[in-house]
């Protein structure tokens, strides 16, 4: 998948002055045309390692700096896309923070930085939530279980924060696109325009050449159809002998 969005990070992701970024690393993958430009930027390695050592020794201020740098990326690329609800994703982020604080003494420094470890913690929290909930979701617990397994197999030799974030965002978008491609093109269009682009229903109805009342029915049918398509995709995935998916690994 090649590069796509060219957007600036939102103001809430502008890091405070104490975070020393590595300019060459921030958009390296994006410049190479391999991944989407993203907001996360890892801490300078020496500083990050020092903060990790201090945090491991019980320094909450150091741990706070690490989590302030990477928490928003965990929320945006790991938790929100997989849990599908801001309120639930924020609960999950709070739980992730709490678990990181409880278990940071178990963390061992890796050259790829602390973000992959934080990401696994967040995914484990998300997995617990997905298993417990009954509402509609794009991701199944099995999706996350596989990702966690893959991340743990990669160990300390895995990619760093920016690549992981880009990959997570891309995987989520791919999941959406794959599901939408299962639908009738008009259904896909209805969902893209109304749900993804959030355009007014009158405008979408006009674009589809139907009345607003008919459009309501079309959208209802489209989402019902999508729900079935997702269930079918999940069923096919679960039926594979090795249980592996085709997402970026």
């Amino acid at each position, binding site marked *: 998948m090649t590069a796509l969005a060219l957007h600036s990070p939102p103001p809430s992701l502008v890091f405070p002055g104490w975070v020393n970024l590595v300019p060459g690393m921030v958009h390296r993958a994006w410049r190479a045309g391999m991944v989407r430009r993203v907001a996360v930027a890892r801490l300078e390695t020496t500083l990050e390692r020092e903060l990790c050592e201090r945090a491991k020794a019980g320094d909450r201020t150091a741990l706070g700096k690490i989590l302030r740098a990477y928490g*928003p990326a965990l929320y945006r690329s790991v938790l929100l896309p997989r849990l*599908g609800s801001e309120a639930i994703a*924020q609960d999950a982020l*709070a739980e992730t*923070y709490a678990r990181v*604080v409880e278990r940071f003494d178990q963390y061992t420094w890796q050259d790829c930085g602390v973000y992959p470890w934080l990401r696994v913690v967040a995914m484990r929290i998300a997995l617990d939530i997905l298993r417990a909930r009954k509402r509609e979701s794009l991701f199944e617990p099995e999706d996350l279980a596989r990702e966690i397994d893959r991340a743990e197999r990669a160990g300390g030799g895995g990619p760093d924060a920016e690549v992981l974030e880009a990959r997570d965002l891309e995987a989520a*978008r791919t999941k959406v696109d794959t599901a939408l491609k299962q639908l009738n093109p008009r259904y896909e269009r209805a969902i893209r325009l*109304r749900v*993804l682009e959030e355009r007014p229903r009158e405008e979408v109805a006009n674009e589809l050449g139907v009345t607003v009342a008919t459009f309501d029915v079309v959208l209802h049918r489209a989402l019902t159809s999508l729900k079935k398509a997702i269930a079918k995709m999940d069923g096919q995935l679960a039926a594979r002998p090795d249980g592996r998916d085709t997402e970026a690994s």
Partner: protein
Amino acid sequence: MKSDDDLPDPAEASAEEQARADEQRRAVDDKSDAVVALLAAAVSPRDLDDEAHDRILAQALGAEALLPAVVEEAPADAAEIKAADGLRRALDGSPADRAEHPLASLAGALRAAHAPGSIAEIRNEALLRPALRGRAGGGPRVLYGAVAGALALAAGIAGLWISGASDGPDTPAASLDGMVEVRSTAPLFSVEDFPQGMGPDRKDTTSERIDKITSARSADLRNNRYRAWGLD
């Protein structure tokens, strides 16, 4: 084998037999009789129409994309129109409305996966600080106050977080020590601020009262932000 002469005379058929014969004739005419259908299929099989073929193919391949014409145009019955209206109201409603409706919830999940938003910095602080202070009791929880309109939103942001010690297991809540909490607007006003009735000599003070609340809550919000950032 019997000859025609051995068959009973049709003219002597009973009324009951005649009725059965009429029924059989109608079944043959409209090809609803199973034996007739079998014979017709064997002797002169009909082509499968395109719509039916599309349906069968799509079913086999698991892709509704192969149904170009039949998806949308089927008329909706009353139940479907009602369901579609329910979806519309949920999509146009509050986050709670969307969470309650399965398809609206799916739409939200789709949007979150396609273009996830960022968490507000102050919100992130509110989630992080209790964790850094360590857990007490059931863990950090954040309680969202219900807000109505812009004024309530400002008040909600200013004092959104309250202690979660008594929260139920599914109610998230976080606590930020020293922050201004949600509270009544009553202390902001005197009796004169609420004139009774709207006679010709009465001045509507609604705007002034709203200005007063907005100003007070804006100050609360500002102070909370400074406190969250450690600038107090």
